[in-house]
């Protein structure tokens, strides 16, 4: 693995001979963003379609509790964070639609319960808060080679999943009953999609932190929706925005001494403002 990484690093030196890309830790940060940002944006396109931004936020915040569980159980917090996120995603999806409550409410209940559990755990075992800061704001600069590999694997996994499921997911988003009448297995897709979202969210937290992770999924997709006329356009514009924001954000944070995760999200927001202005100028009926 290390050998593979050092090959990649020397390739990056040749392709990207810029000041901000020179230190090795910056190269790792760039690689991490190159894998995570497009995965987040690609998943973000159907996410926005399904109005699942709040769901994504709930998974992000539940990661806080997942980490706390790992620390008190003595298991690596990264593993428990992902496992707990998957669990919450599955639970929310199964409960949604089974009760008479709106999805918003169901998510709100799980969200608050998860956070309350996390806070209770933290307060009972004082001193854990130090460990959590890197999860709140992201730890992109201290990312390890192993995490970069995991992110590459996630990127591939998301690509494969979307290759097979994208059409059906979009169809489900346009009209659920109609999609199901065409043979789309709605429940299966709902569950698998929410699990994939949970994987992407818990991984992206390492890059931008819990507070900003939803932005990484939602903002590029939203920016794309402003100007895209077709499904393929929306998809690729979202990915382009996320990549551009990622690289520009890293470079800018290096030169301006700002927090990297936040800078990336600010660039994505700038792109959103740009496409929104463009749409207004074009005179579309919203």
């Amino acid at each position, binding site marked *: 693995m290390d050998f593979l990484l050092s090959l990649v690093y020397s390739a990056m030196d040749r392709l990207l001979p810029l000041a901000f890309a020179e230190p090795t830790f910056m190269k790792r*940060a760039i690689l991490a963003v190159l894998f995570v940002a497009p995965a987040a944006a690609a998943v973000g396109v159907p996410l926005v379609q399904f109005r699942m931004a709040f769901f994504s936020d709930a998974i992000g915040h539940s990661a806080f509790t997942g980490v706390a569980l790992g620390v008190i159980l003595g298991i690596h917090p990264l593993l428990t964070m992902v496992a707990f996120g998957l669990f919450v995603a599955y639970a929310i999806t199964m409960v949604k639609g089974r009760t008479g409550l709106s999805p918003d409410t169901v998510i709100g209940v799980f969200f608050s319960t998860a956070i309350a559990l996390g806070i209770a755990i933290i307060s009972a075992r004082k001193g854990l808060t*130090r460990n959590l800061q890197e999860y709140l704001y992201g730890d992109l600069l201290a990312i390890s080679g192993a995490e970069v590999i995991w992110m590459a694997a996630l990127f591939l996994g998301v690509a494969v999943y979307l290759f097979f499921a994208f059409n059906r997911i979009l169809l489900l988003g346009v009209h659920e009953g109609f999609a199901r009448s065409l043979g789309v297995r709605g429940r299966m897709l709902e569950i698998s999609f929410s699990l994939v979202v949970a994987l992407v969210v818990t991984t992206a937290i390492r890059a931008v932190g819990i507070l900003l992770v939803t932005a990484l999924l939602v903002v590029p997709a939203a920016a794309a929706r402003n100007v895209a006329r077709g499904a393929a356009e929306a998809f690729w514009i979202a990915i382009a925005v996320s990549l551009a924001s990622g690289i520009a954000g890293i470079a800018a944070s290096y030169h301006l001494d700002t927090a990297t995760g936040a800078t990336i999200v600010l660039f994505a927001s700038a792109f959103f403002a740009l496409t929104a202005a463009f749409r207004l100028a074009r005179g579309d009926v919203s």
Partner: protein
Amino acid sequence: MNRAASGIIALFAVSLTALLPPIPARAGAGELRILASFLPMYIFTLNVVGDAPGVSVDLMLPPSMGCPHDYALTPGDMRKIAAADLFIANGYGMEEFLGAPVRKANPRIRIVETARGVPPIREAEGGHDGINPHTWVSPRNAIIQVRNIEAALASVSPRNAGAFRRNADAYAARLAVLAGEIESASARFGNRRIVVFHNVFDYLARDIGLNIVGKIEETPGQEPSAGEIDRLVRAIREKRAAAVFWEPQYPRRLAEMIAAEAGVPARVLDPLSTGRAATDAYEAVMRENLRTLTEVLGK
């Protein structure tokens, strides 16, 4: 709602009260109750009290908590404060929570700021009135703090003044031996330039002549930006610092990454804000720190 359900809920609510922790009994007449703010203060106080009769020592912040930066008092803490006669604090701004709420909880509690007398290191940033509060990490300062504890205890419990003095003398002597060991070892250090995580070791560095060329978190709690990390790495290389030291209370990833980037070793130094609550813990930890420093700097 049916009766069975309300019955069960009432039963449940009542049984929850059984989980409430007991309120600490008031001190018996004549018993001196001492509350120490965090671990080092607790250890020093234990050593001074020894087995003097009618004195109890309690620790407020749990030993896993660490430096009380930004600590907020819990109801359990307020109960302990209400029941204590004497509060042993570090001072110099370390216990920022010692304000009006404490006075209200216990108007007659006497607060001892044990760092008084230690020549303060001023710092430009860091919110504690511009003074670095981490005085106890240098054994010479620890002796001053122990003597302050002894004086406070003796004035509140004159009966035991003799015992306190004997215990403090013995402990101060051990600390002096420790200080001597550290000073003679450090005289032999080849490279005195180090990088630390935050400003915890400034007093030790001053006393044994270490040169802190960079801190990972200049402001405690504020993660460094990409540019700051890069500049720190360059500084380590240019100034040929010997090592990067992390602390057990903070995540080590960042320190290890910076050390790897700069090509120097990463080691742990423990300022004893967390750890074993035992009477010899301070000396044991400091000797371990000395071993680490000698290993890395002794060339």
